[in-house]
């Protein structure tokens, strides 16, 4: 499967093969970008952070010992890069400019069932916006853990590897994040009544 290919790409990239590293970028860029987006709150900063993350990864590939998966290692770098980016912007007011907004990616998927009428489609978009707003208001650690678990689909163990924390801590964070999110969405009232 890909695993073999990925190992070969990693080995080649360690020897300076940028083409092999490009393959690794292609395989992980969306997930890394998504993580950066949920951490930083807008697409421009997320693109910069994702680029920085891959560049750092390429330059420190020799330190990658395969003790964790490449994806976990890459996500850990991404989390650190985003923390650094947030630290640099600490003086500026933090504004999740995009998280609460509708962007092109939240537009109706072409695969949306044709049975969905315009009213249902509109309601679904409103619900998604409400979820984004509620997510944006969560504390960062809760938000990232929840995104990794629910949106990215990582296991507790993988997330604990990314954060370098215990699995129990990750579970606790996710549970609290979910409760906080549910509380926030509960205030939206009718939007989530019939879901």
């Amino acid at each position, binding site marked *: 499967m890909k695993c073999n290919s990925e190992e070969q790409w990693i080995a080649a990239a360690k020897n300076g093969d940028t083409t092999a590293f*490009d393959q690794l*970028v292609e395989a992980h860029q*969306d997930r890394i970008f998504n993580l950066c987006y949920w951490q930083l709150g807008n697409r421009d900063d997320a*693109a910069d952070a994702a680029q920085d993350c891959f560049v750092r990864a390429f330059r420190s590939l020799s330190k990658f010992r395969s003790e964790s998966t490449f994806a976990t290692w890459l996500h850990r770098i991404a989390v650190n890069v985003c923390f650094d980016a947030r630290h640099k912007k600490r003086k500026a007011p933090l504004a999740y400019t995009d998280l609460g907004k509708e962007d092109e990616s939240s537009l109706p998927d072409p695969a949306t069932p044709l049975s969905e009428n315009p009213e249902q489609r509109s309601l679904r978009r409103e619900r998604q916006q409400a979820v984004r707003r509620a997510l944006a208001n969560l504390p960062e650690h809760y938000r990232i853990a929840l995104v990794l678990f629910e949106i990215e689909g990582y296991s507790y163990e993988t997330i604990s590897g990314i954060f370098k924390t215990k699995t129990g801590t990750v579970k606790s964070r996710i549970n609290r994040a979910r409760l906080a999110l*549910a509380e926030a969405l*509960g205030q939206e009232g009718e939007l989530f009544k019939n*879901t």
Partner: protein
Amino acid sequence: MKQLSCDQCRERWDELIHKSTFEADSQFADVRAHLESCADCRKIFELLAATRQELQELPAQKAPASLRANILNQIEKPQEQHIPWWRSFLVSPQHLAWASGAIVAVFVVALLMRPEHQTPVMQIAPKVLTNRGQVEEHNSAPPQVSISPSKPKGDLPAKDLSAEKVLPEKPLAKPLEKAPKVKLQTKTRAKLGATKKTKQQQKLVTPALESASDKKRELPAPNPNRQLSTMQSQQKSEQQKNPPQHLAPPAPIMSDSAANEPRTNEKDGIAKSYSQNSANQQDSMNRSAARALRASEVPAGAIQKFKVQKVPVTIHWSKTITSDYDVANAEITVTLQNGLAFADDTPSHVKRTWWRGTLHRGKQIPLEIDLHRTSENDAKLHVLMIDSDTGKVLLDKNFKLP
């Protein structure tokens, strides 16, 4: 089946929430039973399940198309070498220029911040020396030639004067104090035609003075006997008219033979006389010396220069301060204004903490200060007494000196 509490139920529903077939899963029958019986927990659980569904329906963010190309561009570029800041001074001439400029600026500021540049005394003293040098340079009269002092003749220790010559920028109080003595003595000695110098004297004379003295040697020497008698008679008559109480005998006027003899009390006497001198006494001495010069056919220019020369005067100022306070730690600070300086060697010539101690009512603190008056302006002296612990001002007074 075991009945669960709300807390127990909420601890377990995290696992349950991910089960796709909630109804069919028999492992969570107790949780399901609690949810059916507890409306609050059921409401929250339903909201959590809905939230999870909404989260999973959120479209994942796609990376921009340019990201991959940007990453490739960046990793293919040679990595910039990080140069430590201290090495950048060696590499970049611009940094080097800035650094050297900063060092020069600091050096200049440090020079300007030296205490000598802050006190008026320090500015006046070199001027006096310069004036003296100009006098000697412009006048070919012999009196200024022998400005180089010697211990027996000038009543001044040779080492002090050598210090004065070597460090003309550090005039402090001593040069000012000794200037009139040297002046009078040297002029008198010149009148006496004393051209012979000891080796020590020759060492102490600066090259400029040496050249001036060479010029002056070419002039006809005045009659020494006549001048000596004139000066002595003048001094005697002055002393008879105004006998000073503590004034030492006029040491500057003395013969060469007498000057060569060791004089044990001479220094003390002179110091005492100058510490007690008033402006009138100084003027009278200047007048007598001027008369002597006038009588000895010295060129008129020399006399004029002699007259305009500023002569600092030493004043002994005393005041007793009586305390109206009981203070554990108090201090008195004396600040000099308008052409005054402390007569002794001190780092600051204009301000000094004069007294520290405990005060009680009626305690008398005598202030006895030897001062140099360096200009003819009205001289003022400011006395400030404060409580050192609280900073409270106990006395704040200006004294005008005559």
